[in-house]
């Protein structure tokens, strides 16, 4: 899959790109300069050879030099990736915990918690994340000054600052995932609750909460986990907009800048990195599902 995606992206990007050297050098550059720049960028070679060179470099961790940034692509990505990953991972954890609490309570209690989950499900699904982000920024940062409106402070540097800068983006990014996850967990828990073994375990003297949080949740966990994987991939996309809004120096602004300036090496770097992350996340989810479900483990 990684090879397919990167090859397709590489060829499409290069076929689609116009005269790159001309764009970089500007209209005033002489034709000789443009040809020289083309040779420097390796664009005069056949496209398959270009891809081959690029792929060889990739295996050595070299993604080439960016056209619109002074730094090599790999270096830029290396400084930005941790930020996006931190944001998305925290959001995933946050969304998972909240969804489990909401979904389980809604399935077990019904009543007003159930209605809240239904409502969040509707709102979170219907209202795009960036609107939520705007609302959060204007209310909690601009008016109430509780959190930072923009910027990113790493946890290692200042835990309190991290909390102030990360809370709003995490909330904005998490809401739609919470909407989807909580509904799904609610359904799965409601199904699992009516299973015969729940009654039998309770008849053997286990308390209701123990049965729910150990046995029911574990059985409802498999489908929820697959959905969480899908959500994680979705968040990688959502993070682009959220990072732009909160001015977080993650992959998002880099991707927007790279595409805005037709920077093919940088775009390729983003594409490959995203594909790698998607593959790793799916692998992790598969492993976790196998750990949860003994039947999957066997086959």
């Amino acid at each position, binding site marked *: 899959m990684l090879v397919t995606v990167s090859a397709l992206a590489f060829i499409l990007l290069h076929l689609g790109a116009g005269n790159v050297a001309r764009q970089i050098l500007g209209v005033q550059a002489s034709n000789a300069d443009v040809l020289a720049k083309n040779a420097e960028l390796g664009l005069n070679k056949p496209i398959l050879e270009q891809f081959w060179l690029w792929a060889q470099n990739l295996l050595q961790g070299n993604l080439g030099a960016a056209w619109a940034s002074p730094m090599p692509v790999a270096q830029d990505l290396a400084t930005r990736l941790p930020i996006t990953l931190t944001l998305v991972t925290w959001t995933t954890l946050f969304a998972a915990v909240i969804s489990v609490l909401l979904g389980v309570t809604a399935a077990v209690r019904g009543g007003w918690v159930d209605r809240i989950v239904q409502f969040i499900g509707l709102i979170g699904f*219907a209202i795009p994340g960036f609107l939520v982000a705007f609302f959060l920024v204007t209310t909690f940062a601009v008016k109430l000054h509780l959190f930072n409106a923009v910027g990113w402070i790493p946890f290692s540097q200042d835990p309190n600052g991290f909390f102030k800068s990360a809370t709003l983006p995490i909330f904005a990014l998490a809401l739609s995932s919470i909407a989807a996850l909580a509904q799904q967990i609610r359904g799965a828990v409601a199904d699992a609750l*009516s299973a015969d073994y729940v*009654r*039998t375990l309770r008849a053997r*003297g*286990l308390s209701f909460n123990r049965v729910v949080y150990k046995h029911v949740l574990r059985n409802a966990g498999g489908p929820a986990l697959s959905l969480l994987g899908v959500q994680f991939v979705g968040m990688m996309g959502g993070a682009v907009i959220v990072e732009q809004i909160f001015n977080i120096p993650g992959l998002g602004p880099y991707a927007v800048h790279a595409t805005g300036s037709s920077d093919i090496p940088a775009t390729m770097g983003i594409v490959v990195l995203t594909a790698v992350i998607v593959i790793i996340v799916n692998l992790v989810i598969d492993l976790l599902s196998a750990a949860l479900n003994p039947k999957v483990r066997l086959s």
Partner: protein
Amino acid sequence: MTTTTIVTMPVTKQESLLKRILTNPSGIFSVGIVLAVILFGIIVPILSPYQANQPDVYALTAMPSAKHFFGTDTAGRDIFTVLAAATNYSLEAAALAVIIAIAIGVVSGLIAGYFGGWFDSLASWFSSVLMALPGLVVLLAAAAVMGPSMWTSMELFGVLLSPAYYRLVYTTVRGVRGELYVDAARVSGLGDVTIIGRHILGVVRTPIIIQTAIIGAIAIAIQVGLAFLGLGDTSQVSWGSMLQDAFSRIYTSPQLLIWPSAFIALITLALVIFANTLRDELERTGPKNLRVKKDAAEIASKRAAQMEQSPVVTHPAPERKGEQVLRVDNVVIGYPDGQGGLRQVVHGVSLDINRGEVVGLIGESGSGKTQTAFSVLGLLPKGGRILSGNIQFAGEELVGSAAKVYDNIRGAKIAYIPQEPMSNLDPSFTIGTQLMEPMQQVLGISKSEARKKAIALLTRVGIPNPELTLKKYPHEISGGQAQRVLIAGAVSCDPDLIIADEPTTALDVTVQAEVLDLLRELQKETNTALLLVTHNFGVVADLCDYINVMQNGRIIERGPVRDIFKNAQHPYTQSLLDSILEGGPARGAYEAPKGN
């Protein structure tokens, strides 16, 4: 003739569905909002005195006034007019993505679902690849090549969205293709295209409408996101460009955010509500079903009223041994009937069990015997309640007592052996964990002690190689073994009363006898009281000292097992006795009919 009826059916259904949507408040609300937003985009540009791209340097970011209803933006343009143009543009762009997604997804879904074959595998692979990609990143990459153009972006996004339709149509078509009327149409000589057009599209139409509302909301969100990131046509105003403009002044003029945000939120919310309403209407069962249910309830209550007249036949019991363990007195159990009332399923059942006794509760399925057993455990299914009566366990009243009381009694004092062994073991945990966890909780023993005890118990219930079995998962053992595990679990904490609900019904005949033997032995060894719930008089004869016969939520005959077998009074008991295979005359050998 047949074909015409089939063709008209979905059409009438569609009309009534439309009518139902328009009489439903949330249906009207959502359709109204969507229409209002669309009309706003069409009408305002005609009426407005301003142009959408008409700046006014003397009125930058003006507040709302009579001249500018919604104020002006950072370039002094009239927000009311800009908003209308943006609405037009954003909706058109989103519609483009949706139309492309429908065109690709529906057509490929129909072909793959109807014909299958290589196209099926290719399309399914392609759709899963598309779904694995983060859409926004793909769109960004595409924008790098093709430059910032909203139309190309939305075309590409349409392709990315098409799996949503593909999957929907594919699964529906797969389901419909096997239907008899499709076969009938094929047999009657209709071509594939006609069949798809007439029969299959009719079925997938409403699900497609629902999906379109949701996909439309997503397309709007993405379109706005792209424009906000500056990847749209910079010359065109859209909701996203308005947000971008407003966001640059978020500290000084946050009011600029209000209108584009409100419009986006309104229309996406309306679309999702519309989809939900349509789905609810589609799934709602008509009033016809309700009436049927009511009829059934009436019949049941009439039958119950008839039963009330016949008194309980009680055979006198000799002196009973042991002290009383359980006393169920006139217990009434009810469930909500879904119309605000309660439906009684058990109408005043009384029975008692002394230490060392085996008491049978026998009756056909639906007679309320299992409900009675669950009420003793305090584990009635959701909605079920004990409406009146008393349940006393070792002298303690259980009806209405706190959850804590039940938690201390269940497992420790009252144990339960279920009917279906496989579904009563948690599939995600090993036999060992499930056997040991309640022991550790109830008896407060350590894990290693529980493990020792579990091995002893498994050996006792006749499971070979108990150490290995502890490590196995429920799906790795047989039904008979699973039932032995459940029995081991039930006796693990030395209960005073075991309630066995049809403990052998789900097992093979050969295993049934073994499990009954095991139950009998365990009961004798520990001298516990055993309440045996069953529909099988053979099992009762085998084990019980006393019997309670139940029908329609009442006990109709009770007494020592011998007396009832010899001298059953109630016609229902007699009919149950007649149905025992073992008691009947042996059937003769099979004689082949004499051929010529």
